[in-house]
């Protein structure tokens, strides 16, 4: 009795480790790297809190497409582009501070909806390979974004402010200064605890979004999305408009990504016009996966855990790398390797799990069929 219980416990632990291999790996990495990096705890906590405020909103926008069974939305960069375009217009109008942030969010909505609709309808035509398609969409739209921002703004789309326009008369500069709205959300209502700045307002906004997601899951639309995510065919038979539901999930995600990008950039204080968005999708996805999410299942808890673990690694890796090898570049490459590696592992685990369950159900089917023929045979004999 006892030994079997022990065995059960052992397999349970093994199962737990197997299911949470990525977070556990990251906890181990952080555990080793933090002492090596030599950062003071208050510096580390300060950095992590800042990065939580700036990234969580962006990462939360990945949850809804996962719910709808569309996998990791690599096309969240589209929302980021919409946010950037909105910020360019707001800078051109010279609207500063919190009104500027609110205005940028409002401006970003139409762009986000448009891009979200485009992306969603393309993804509806590529069912079963949403992730690779959304990944390519992000590249494709990056080309269009450059076409618009670098060649059309100032020539076709009126941009009058010299501080953001290239000297040649059209196109936007490589960096647009957002100094006038830098950390305006974070500083309002900020609380300092032992030298750690806590951007309360930003966290409040994040909290609201979390509540929205929890509420959304319970609505009719949210239930539909989960049904579509479970099984498209069953959902369709149940009378759910599958394409429409999927489209909506991408649009919501894109709009939220636009807001998230604006929050992110107001914290950074400047916009790298042509590169701010390019890496953001990859890092958000990596952070989400580090938190223990998988391609078909992610929760708000995954987001928070993921941000803390991933960004701790991100902060300490360069100096830890320098301490070990004497070259800080090693650490920088290491953290990039970790981000890619995590995504790879999560994708492989997801696909192999899917395959396992598929073959299991096939085997069950076969067994059932065999049983049926057997019983039929018996009946015939009788």
């Amino acid at each position, binding site marked *: 009795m006892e030994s079997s219980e022990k065995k059960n416990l052992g397999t349970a632990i093994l199962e737990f480790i197997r299911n949470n291999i990525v977070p556990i790996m990251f906890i181990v990495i952080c555990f080793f790297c933090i002492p090596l990096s030599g950062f003071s705890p208050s510096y580390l906590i300060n950095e992590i809190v800042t990065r939580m405020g700036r990234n969580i909103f962006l990462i939360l926008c990945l949850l809804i497409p996962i719910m709808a069974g569309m996998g990791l939305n690599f096309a969240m960069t589209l929302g980021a582009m919409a946010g950037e375009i909105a910020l360019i217009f707001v800078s051109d109008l010279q609207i500063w501070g919190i009104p500027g942030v609110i205005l940028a969010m409002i401006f970003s909505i139409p762009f986000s909806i448009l891009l979200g609709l485009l992306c969603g309808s393309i993804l509806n035509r590529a069912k079963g390979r949403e*992730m690779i*398609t959304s990944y390519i969409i992000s590249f*494709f739209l990056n*080309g269009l974004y450059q076409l618009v921002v670098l060649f059309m703004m100032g020539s076709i789309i009126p941009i009058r402010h010299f501080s953001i326009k290239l000297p040649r008369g059209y196109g936007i500069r490589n960096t647009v200064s957002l100094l006038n709205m830098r950390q305006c959300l974070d500083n309002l209502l900020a609380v300092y605890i032992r030298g750690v700045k806590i951007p309360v307002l930003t966290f409040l906004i994040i909290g609201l979004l979390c509540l929205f997601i929890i509420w959304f899951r319970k609505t009719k639309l949210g239930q539909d999305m989960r049904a579509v995510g479970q099984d498209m065919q069953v959902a369709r038979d149940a009378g759910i408009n599958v394409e429409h539901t999927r489209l909506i999930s991408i649009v919501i995600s894109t709009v939220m990504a636009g807001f998230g990008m604006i929050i992110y950039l107001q914290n950074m204080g400047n916009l790298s016009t042509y590169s701010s968005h390019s890496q953001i999708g990859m890092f958000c996805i990596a952070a989400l996966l580090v938190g223990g999410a998988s391609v078909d299942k992610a929760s708000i808890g995954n987001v928070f855990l993921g941000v803390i673990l991933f960004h701790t690694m991100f902060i300490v890796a360069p100096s830890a790398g320098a301490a070990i090898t004497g070259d800080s570049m090693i650490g920088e490459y290491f953290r990039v*390797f970790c981000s*890619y590696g995590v995504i*790879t592992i999560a994708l492989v685990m997801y*696909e192999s799990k899917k395959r396992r369950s598929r073959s299991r159900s096939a*085997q069950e089917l076969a067994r059932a069929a065999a049983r049926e023929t057997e019983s039929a045979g018996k009946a015939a004999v009788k």
Partner: protein
Amino acid sequence: MRNESKDQNLNSPSKPQDVRKTVPAPQQAAELEKAQMGPVRALAASFGLPRLIITAFLLLMFIAAPIVGNDFWTQISNVINRFSWNAILVLAMVPMIHSGCGLNFGLPLGIISGLLGATLSIEFGFTGAASFFMAILIATPISVVLGCGYGWLLNRIKGGEMMIATYVGFSSVSFMCMMWLLLPYHSPTMVWGFAGKGLRTTISLEGFYSEALARLLRIQIGNLSIPTGTLLFFALMAFLMWAFLHTKTGTAMTAVGSNPTFARAAGVNVDRMRLLSVVLSTWLGALGILVYEQGFGFIQLYNAPFYMALPAVSAILIGGASVNKASIVNVLIGTFLFQGMVTMTPTVMNSIIHTDMSEVIRIIVSQGMILYALTRKSEGGSH
């Protein structure tokens, strides 16, 4: 869903005779459709509208080049040169598409093997053309080993190959970024001068295999110069690939790609065929980057291989391949069109409107092409 969705009933008792009946159906339907269309529309359908547009664009560029004052023959030479550098990288796409593994976004893995071969060959002190052949020789076992691992992985995750391939490529490139710094290379031509260790980001091949193939039998008429050696080398590889696809193993591989259930029923070991195709793809990737380097004259390390898969992927798609169908002709046409576009647009555009829009055009066209291929219902897939 891609054609592996058929794999769903992987271990279930399948009914091969049923499958056999349905296989030719889509082709028949396509023939029928073609017969009903007018000749122009049939041409457009068989050639593909995007390809027609790109061809027209390229033709326009060729016509515009001399008008706006660019030398026609220099432009032609440039296009042929670029073609010769890139063709084998595009050829590397063929085996994996044939075996149904989809577009090889994991090409950087092959490129990494090639780069290891190149750097090791220089490290061991080979120079001149010998260093090129040594690089191939060293890269071969590396690419076979890496390709086996990669193929084994892809066999475990049938249906999700392309996404995972992308990230296998990225992970390997970022892993090698660390390795280029850490591996004990000493050759003074390759390591950073002041530190004495860690490879440089770009390594000149002057004195090694720069133009090792291109110099062979080079034809030079006025401004026109043709790197005959490289072209011949590519022709050899393309011929070998064509011949391979017509051997028993090759046809088995194609069968695996077009209908895995049927292939299994016919006694083909699906996983082995897929593994073989991945190894071939990886090896051709290694070879391709070496040929690219001999033309370009530099080895590029660190972040350079990150996005090398995308141009190759879009080239073969522009050539008329789809996610699960590709031929040598697709490689030829695609590489020519893509490289032609990449080479011609900057110069011609610059002469016409004095701004360089080519980068943007390249991104839109190449990524748009990949998107187009991904959203098309793949033939032989789920109907």
